[in-house]
């Protein structure tokens, strides 16, 4: 049966299928050249390339911390909505970022986020940004996201 809930794809499955569309659907994300590389239930991975226009310190060429904030916010929000069993928008309530070490000039930044707990109204997330591995992290984030009201299933590809 097509309206058997067991056969309906979960939001994260649709997000995974539409990963390119989700990456391109955020104007500021596109301007930062950010993209998602993988989505699983409650998890999101992405890539933030180094770009001259994102530099925060012209003397060192290091990307500004604010770019990492947007990067980890995007990943965390997607990890949060992919954790839910029904399609919902989530809105960032708060986000805490810790800067562990500067990113290196000219190098892409890899990021991953997980939603480790959800309640009826809130998703709790953590995220990491690094060049090679989580052992040498550039920044970490802890976030809380408010789960918004239901919305039409066809808008799911724009979830973010």
């Amino acid at each position: 049966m097509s309206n058997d809930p067991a056969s309906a794809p979960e939001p994260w499955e649709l997000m995974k299928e539409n990963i390119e569309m989700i990456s391109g659907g955020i104007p500021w994300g596109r301007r930062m050249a950010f993209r998602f590389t993988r989505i699983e239930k409650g998890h999101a991975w992405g890539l933030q390339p180094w770009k001259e226009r994102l530099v925060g310190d012209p003397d060192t060429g290091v990307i500004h911390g604010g770019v990492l904030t947007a990067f980890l916010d995007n990943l965390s929000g997607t990890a949060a909505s992919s954790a839910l069993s029904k399609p919902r928008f989530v809105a960032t309530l708060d986000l805490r970022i810790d800067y562990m070490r500067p990113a290196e000039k000219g190098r892409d930044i890899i990021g991953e986020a997980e939603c480790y707990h959800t309640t009826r109204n809130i998703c709790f997330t953590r995220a990491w940004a690094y060049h090679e591995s989580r052992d040498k992290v550039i920044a970490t984030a802890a976030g809380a996201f408010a789960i918004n009201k239901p919305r039409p299933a066809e808008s799911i590809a724009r979830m973010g």
Partner: protein
Amino acid sequence: MEEEDMKLTRADEVRAFIARTPLAQEMGLRCEVMGDEMTMIMPFQDKLIGNFMIKAIHGGAIGAFLELTSQAQVFLVTEHLARPPRPINLTIDYLRQGHAKDLYARAEITKMGRRMCSVRAEAWQDEREKPVTTLMAHFMVAGD
């Protein structure tokens, strides 16, 4: 002319920081410095949108705006700093949606220590009393 007279004021240095920082230029930032006070302005641009269905400014862009505002404010009032300070950590509180219009921000130093300082900043649109987003951050001010 004496070399002293050629020196840039700290306000000039803050303006120069905004003018030569690629991300601040990408975001179209402008600052108005009045003595030890400063207001940062982010004129609305389509590329700053985070959700095109509701035309809201991207939370990450607002976060970056508040971080740059805080950095500039600390630099403005900390004379021994040779360059804008580096952030240690920050917490962003998203209070209201950032609509498709100009955003303003101010930062104030809660505590200036010898090595670190604590800063609060807020961004608003129509009414200062209804902030869109607030930020709490720590910066290193020990010098390089």
